[in-house]
C-alpha cells in the first residue's frame, strides 16, 4: 500500500519523447486508470513506476520516498501480465505461494499457508487450490494471477492491458469479474488500457494520456460530462460523441446557437448558466457535443427538427446505432434494435441542447455544459467526497 507520485517525469528514447513532463499523484488504495490510444505513453509510464525504465528527468516517489535509484525487485511492485503466465505444472496453491517462496520474500510454511488461504478466500478460489491451471476456467485463471500478485502485500499493483488479448465476449466478462474483485485488492492499483469501458468501469480516477502528456485527470463523471477538450470527449463514450459547428446568436435578449443549417436556431436553456459561460468566454464559434444516447429522432415529418436521411442503421445487440446524414454532416444516435428502417429514408432529428457540451472551435477546449443533471451529479460527488 502506498501513495505514488510521479513528479515532472520525462522519458526519452533517442530523439523520441515518450513522456513529456508528466505529473500524477495516485492516492493510497486508489484504483487508478491510465487511458489513451496506442502509442500514448501509458506502458512507458507504468514501466517507470515499476523501475523497468528510469526517467531522464523527474522523480518517482512511493510514500514520499524517492524510487529512481531502487531496482525493480526492491520496489515491492506486483505486475499482472496479459497472458497471466501461470506455472502450468504447479497447482493453484503453489502458483499463489510462489512469490513467498522466492529468495527475496522467503516465508516459513505456516505463513505461506495462512497467506495463500487468505488471498484464495478473498478471491473465491479457495475450492480450487489443488487444481492445475489447465483445469480451471479463464475467469479463475485471472483470479489466480491476481492472487499471486496480492499474496505479498505489494506497494502497488500494476496491470498492463490484462484483458486486451481476449475476444470481445470474454473481455467484457473478465472486466466484470475484475470489478467484482476490486474491493478486495486493498492496495494501490495502476491499470493501463485503451478500452473506454474498462477505464470507466474500473477507475476510481482516470488519467487520459495522449502523445506522452497527461490531458485530463478525473473521475468517470468528470471526464464524461466535463471533458477538458474535444479529444477527451471523443475518447470517452461509445458510440462517439457528435461534434457539430455552432455559432452564438442573440435576439431580443434571448440567446440561441445556430447549428448544422443556416437559420436553424436552438434556444439555450436559461437556468443552466451556460449562457453566462458562453458570453464570458468571448468565443463566438463552437463545436457543440451531443452524446448519441441523448439525440432524439422521428420518421414523421415534424417542424422544428432537422431533416436528414438514414445513412446507416446497425444493430449492436441490445440496441442499435442510427446515423443520420444532415447536409454533409453525420449525426449518430441510439435506437431500438428491432426498428424497421430503410437506408436513405427521411428522418427528423432533435439535438438535445439541454444536454450539450460546448468547446471553443479554435482551441477545442471545454467551455461549459448545459446539462444540469450532469452538473448536479458532479456537485453531489464533490460533496460526498468532502464528507468522507
Amino acid at each position: 500500500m502506498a501513495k505514488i507520485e510521479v513528479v515532472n517525469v520525462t522519458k526519452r528514447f533517442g530523439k523520441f519523447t515518450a513522456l513529456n513532463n508528466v505529473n500524477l499523484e495516485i492516492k493510497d488504495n486508489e484504483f487508478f486508470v491510465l487511458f489513451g490510444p496506442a502509442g500514448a505513453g501509458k506502458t512507458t509510464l507504468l514501466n517507470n513506476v515499476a523501475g523497468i525504465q528510469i526517467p531522464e528527468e523527474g522523480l518517482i516517489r512511493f510514500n514520499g520516498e524517492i524510487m529512481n535509484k531502487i531496482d525493480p525487485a526492491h520496489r515491492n511492485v506486483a505486475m499482472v501480465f496479459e497472458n497471466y503466465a501461470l506455472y502450468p505444472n504447479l497447482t493453484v496453491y503453489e502458483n499463489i505461494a510462489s512469490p513467498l517462496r522466492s529468495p527475496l520474500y522467503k516465508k516459513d510454511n505456516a505463513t505461506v499457508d495462512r497467506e495463500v488461504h487468505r488471498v484464495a478466500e478473498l478471491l473465491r478460489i479457495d475450492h480450487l487450490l489443488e487444481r492445475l491451471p489447465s483445469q480451471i476456467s479463464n475467469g479463475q485463471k485471472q483470479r489466480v494471477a491476481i492472487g499471486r500478485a496480492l499474496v505479498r502485500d505489494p506497494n502497488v499493483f500494476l496491470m498492463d492491458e490484462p484483458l486486451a488479448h481476449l475476444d470481445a465476449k470474454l473481455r467484457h466478462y473478465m472486466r466484470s469479474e475484475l470489478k467484482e474483485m476490486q474491493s478486495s485488492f486493498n492496495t494501490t492499483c495502476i491499470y493501463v488500457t485503451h478500452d473506454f469501458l474498462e477505464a470507466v468501469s474500473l477507475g476510481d480516477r482516470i488519467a487520459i494520456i495522449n502523445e506522452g502528456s497527461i490531458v485530463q485527470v478525473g473521475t468517470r463523471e468528470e471526464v464524461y460530462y466535463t471533458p477538458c477538450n474535444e479529444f477527451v470527449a471523443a475518447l470517452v463514450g461509445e458510440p462517439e460523441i457528435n461534434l457539430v459547428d455552432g455559432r452564438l446568436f442573440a435576439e431580443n435578449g434571448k440567446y440561441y446557437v445556430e447549428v448544422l443549417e443556416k437559420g436553424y436556431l436552438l434556444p439555450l436553456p436559461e437556468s443552466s448558466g451556460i449562457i453566462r459561460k458562453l458570453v464570458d468566454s468571448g468565443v463566438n464559434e463552437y463545436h457543440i457535443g451531443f452524446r448519441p444516447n441523448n439525440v432524439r429522432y422521428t420518421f414523421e415529418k415534424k417542424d422544428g427538427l432537422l431533416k436528414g436521411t438514414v445513412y446507416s442503421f446497425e444493430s449492436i445487440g441490445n440496441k442499435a446505432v442510427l446515423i443520420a446524414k444532415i447536409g454533409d454532416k453525420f449525426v449518430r444516435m441510439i435506437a431500438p434494435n428491432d426498428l424497421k428502417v430503410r437506408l436513405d429514408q427521411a428522418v427528423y432529428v432533435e439535438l438535445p441542447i439541454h444536454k450539450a457540451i460546448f468547446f471553443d472551435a479554435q482551441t477545442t477546449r471545454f467551455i461549459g455544459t448545459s446539462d444540469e443533471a450532469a452538473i448536479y451529479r458532479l456537485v453531489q460527488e464533490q460533496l460526498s467526497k468532502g464528507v468522507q
Partner: protein
Amino acid sequence: MSKLIIKNLYKRYENKGKKKTQPNDFAVNDLSLECEDGEFIGILGPSGCGKTTTLRMIAGLEDITAGDIYIGDQRVNDLHPKNRNIGLAFEDYALYPPLTVYDNIAFNLKAKGVSKDEIKQRVMDIAPLLKVEDLLDKMPISLSGGQKQRVNIARAIVRRPGILLLDEPLSHLDGKMRQALRIEIKRLHNEIKCTTVYVTHDQLEAMSLADRIAIMNLGVLQQFGTPMEVYDDPANEFVAGFIGEPPMNILKTTIIKHENDYYFTFENSDLRIIAPRRYYDLLSDGMQVKMGVRPTDIYVGGPDSKGTPVRVAVYEDLCSERRIGVRVGDELVMMITEDDTRYRQGEMIKLEVNGEKTHLFDLNTGNRIRSKK
C-alpha cells in the same frame, strides 16, 4: 447477381498419419443453405467452425468432399474458380504494389480483354461507391489499411460478379476504421444489390450487415435466420450464447413444482423464478434443464417487489448504461439498466426476471426446448 444454393456440403481434410475417421473430422458437415438473389448472407462462428472452408469451396479454392454448390442455375463443383463469376476479397488486401489504385482495380478487366473505354467507365462507376475516387493515382504503399481494403473490395466488384465473397475483410482494421468501412459495405450492398457471402467471427459485424446469418460451430450449421430471429429465437444454447453482448445468461436449473406452479431454482441460491405457463406441459417436478435470459430482461424491483433479495456482486457505471452483476450459485448473472440509480457492491436488491423472456435448453444436447403454443 445470382442465387447461391449449397446442398449437403461436406469437407474433410486428409489427416496424414491419423487414420481414424470420426464425425467431427469434417471441417464442414452436411451444410445446406439457400441464398436469394441479391441477399447479404453472413457466415458466423468461432475460429475453426468451417466458415472460411465453406467460402473457399464456393470460390473453388478448395475441393468439395461431398455435396453440391449451385451459382445461379449452374452446378459449379467442377468449374474452375475463374469461371464461377465470383468476386473475392480476403482479410489481406494483396494489392499489386507496383500498380496504381486505378490499375489495381482495372487489373482483372484488362486480363479479360475488356476494352480500355469500358474499363475506365466501370472503374469510374465503382470508385465513388467505395470512396476511392481521389486515390486512383496513388500507389498502394501510401494508403491506410482502410483505404487498401476499399480498393480491394472495389477490385472484387468491378468485374460485376454473380456473387461477392468477403472473408473477414475488416479484421485487420482498428476500431474506428472498421466501423466506418462496415457502414460503407452495407451502403454499397444497398446500392449494387450483389449477392454477398460475408464470413466473420464477430457477431456484431454479422448482426449489423447481414440480411440472414448462418451460425456455424464445429463444421455444423446451428441456425440460419435474420439477425432478430437468431437474437430473439435462438435454436440452441450455442447460438444463444454467441449472439448478443453482453451474452445471454445461461444457468443450470432444477424445476420445482409448488402448489400448481412450476419454478426455476438454482443450486446454492435462493433465487426462484416462476416458469412461464406455456412451458407447463413440458415440465415436471425435479427436471433439470438450462435456462437462458438476456441481461435486458432482468430488473431491479422496487420497494414492493416480490423479487428475490440478492446481493450486488458487481456494479459497473459505463456512462450511458449501467451493468449490475449478481451471483447465482457460482455464476455471475449480468443485467443492464439505463436508469440512473447507483448501487454499491454488497447492497441488497430485489431481482426480477421477465419469465416470459426466458428460454429453455436441454441439459445434454443444448437444443432449445420449445413450448408447443
